[in-house]
């Protein structure tokens, strides 16, 4: 039986799939002049892979675009080339949405990640994580997903089935190198607004240590683009997300 998920112990708890532990440390490399003739700048690199391919997915209205902008902003501030590909407009009305982020120390990339080449999948809705895994997954992918369900219309009408959270966990365990399933929406609701789920997830992303982002970088980025009255709530959401992983 696939039923509606409530805030039971099962979902409010952090789920950690996979076997490997994050073992990266931040190092600083110096980049030489690139093809465009830009002078070398200091760039932090927590990995050797270039580009780093990140997909942020969810359902229209969950704040996918904001999450990708904030994340990209932090990385641009840190000196990386970031390319974001996203779709909005009618394509987002109730449907699945996806932002592709390519993070590189060398150049701008294509705004669409090639099939099977995601390094990190961030999902604001659990089944959307699976949808993206089908197209972009590979044995090394890391998945950070919100456990809070948004039912597709076909499930509401009874024509389609929605997998149970256990089924989703099983899939993540088998197809992702590392995965985290957290109830970001519950944390956001506790802060007074479910729409903050996207920032909770960004906080959790900082905690899993896959990208060179932290609270300081987040503060700097939202100070640039967000009204002062909104910053406090967003900081709290970031901290709550970080806590969910710790």
């Amino acid at each position, binding site marked *: 039986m696939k039923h*509606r998920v409530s805030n039971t112990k099962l979902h409010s708890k952090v789920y950690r799939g996979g076997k490997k532990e994050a073992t990266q440390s931040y190092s600083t490399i110096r980049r030489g002049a690139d093809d465009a003739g830009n002078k070398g700048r200091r760039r932090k690199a927590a990995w050797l892979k270039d580009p780093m391919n990140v997909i942020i997915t969810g359902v229209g209205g969950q704040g996918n675009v904001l999450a990708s902008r904030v994340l990209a902003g932090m990385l641009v501030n840190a000196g990386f080339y970031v390319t974001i590909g996203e779709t909005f407009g009618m394509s987002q009305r109730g449907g699945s949405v996806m932002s592709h982020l390519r993070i590189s120390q060398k150049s701008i990339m*294509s*705004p669409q990640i090639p099939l*099977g080449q995601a390094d990190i999948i961030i999902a604001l809705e659990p089944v959307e994580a699976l949808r993206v895994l089908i197209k972009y997954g590979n044995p090394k992918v890391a998945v950070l997903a919100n456990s809070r369900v948004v039912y597709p219309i076909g499930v509401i009408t009874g024509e389609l089935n929605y997998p149970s959270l256990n089924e989703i966990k099983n899939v993540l365990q088998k197809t992702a190198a590392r995965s985290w399933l957290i109830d970001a929406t519950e944390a956001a609701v506790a802060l007074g607004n479910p729409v903050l789920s996207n920032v909770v997830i960004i906080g959790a992303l900082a905690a899993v240590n896959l990208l060179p982002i932290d609270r300081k970088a987040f503060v700097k980025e939202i100070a640039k683009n967000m009204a002062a009255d909104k910053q406090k709530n967003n900081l709290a959401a970031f901290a709550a997300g970080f806590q969910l992983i710790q």
Partner: protein
Amino acid sequence: MSKLLSPAGSEVLFMGNEAIARGALEAGVNVATGYPGTPSSEVIESLGAVANARNLYVEWSTNEKVALEVAAAASFAGLRAMCVMKQNGVNVASDFLLHLTGSGTRGGIVLVTCEDPGALSSVNEGESRYFARMLEIPLLEPANFQEAKDLTRWAFELSEKIKNIVVLRSVTRMSHASGNVICGKLPTKSRRAYFVYDGSIMDQERGPVIGTPVVAKHYLQQEKLKKAAALFEKSPFNNYRGPKKPELLLITSSACFLYSQEAISMLGLQKRVGLLKLGCTWPLPSKLLKKHLSSTRKILIVEEVLPFLEENVKVLAAGILKEIGIKTFYGKMDETLPSAGELNSDLVAAALSKILKVKYQSLPASYQQEIKKIIPLVPLREQTFCPGCPHRASFWSIHNAIQLDGREGIVCGDIGCYALAALFPSCGFNTVRTLHSMGSGTGIASGFAKLGAFGFAKPVIAVCGDSTFYHAAIPALINAQHNRADITFIVLDNSGTAMTGFQPHPGLTISAAGDAIPAVEIAGICEAIGAKVAISDPFDLDKTCKILNAFMEETGSLKVLILQQECALSPEKKDKKQFLMKVDEELCRGDNCGCNRLCTRIFRCPALVWDRAKKKAVIDDVICAGCGVCYSICPQKAIVRTEAIK
């Protein structure tokens, strides 16, 4: 400070559309106009936000043709102007554009068209590059975000050099993608408008701005195009990377350059494939192409959507065949690449691997097996009206009124979010039967209503959004009234151009720059035409349905129903619930109710879900927008609403 006004030298993450806007600012643009349409809207939106700070005139015009006319006036007065639209907007503007290219222009003027390969947010896959060839004007296509800025800036210079309008074409994956851009200098001086018209008719600088004598001016226009071609030969926006004698020459432009570059590196073909990227795609820089076409025998052309570049390169090659030798061309025409839809790195890599017979390493078979197992678990997520969307309520009433009427009335659809009612029929309760270009629903309805003499007796309804009403529905409405077409015209008025992000339109009291301006009322226009007009709140299902039934019964005239309710995503409404909704478990009879799950199976609101364990309906509080409409649909009155405390 707005990101768009970042100081020279700073590196900023710009969306392609913001980069275009910044390029225009660096060129010293004075007037910018447009009509909203995905993926173009952010260009004018971001310029509107800095209009007062930079002393610009920025306008959301009624439609694309008017937008181009307003921009042209600025050019005639020696100012720099830009006009922005989506691909099909160029069709709307094209009649004026044809005549503008004949008269020529003065101050630099650029038409920006942001196109949508794959129709991610369109109901067409229109290509406007052919307009550049057909109307004999230059065409530029940026291939990354930095170029989106730099090429826009240069487009103004080019326009002033040749004294004609220049087209800059972007695509969704450029306009709505973002990347690092290094800002240039913003000019400190602004131009003064200065319109001179007393010179001779052939004097483009001082004479009247007119396209006659046609043949003489046509020759003049063609001279301008030759001048552009000469400039293109040396343009840094056309460049080549690869071996001197590549095994395969890949010619591309726009976002396809990024796909091509990635595909070449995915397959490790850097030493075998040469990549010729063209920023100037019409007229073609023929000498540059001749040089590169001579360097190899195999040529692949990568572009979206139609084979525009492919055709033009082939025509050029045919003319110089003796000098360059016989070539094999690959592209859309031989189906090496798909002939419709958008491209990506994978599709280009597939084409390369087919031509050069190289294998692309894919994922391990065991992993692919695991992935295959996921597919049946993932339910399709169909697009639908948002929770709290007024359109769901409007179509609910339209459907019920048609059922009550009993004559199988038909609805002609139009362009806006409410087009979803046609794209996913059950989302509009299976009422909408046609969907074409902006305003066409009204014209088509007017036509259906005149088929009575041929035995067509169904009531005819047209739906139209508020922004669409001003854009193109008014002439069709006048046509219906004048020709006594018996239609019920419904305006789905949600107080803004909602689908593209709430840009203002003539019905609102705010300009693109945020200043107060007078509104032009829809009801007033319809009454002036002579139509019978009623206004209702679509959330009042009973009243709306009653008016519709009365209108459908009344024959021989044009009836207009304006359904006013703000979009659920509008800044005024978002995150503010009017009602707190709940399903009373005692009252909901679940599967035992005769309603056959009307609320979840038919009404289809994402927030009104079916609890499969309890076999009853339940409201998802996180998703519910609190519009309260579902309160009216439950025959058991099991859905209860309480006024939210504000």
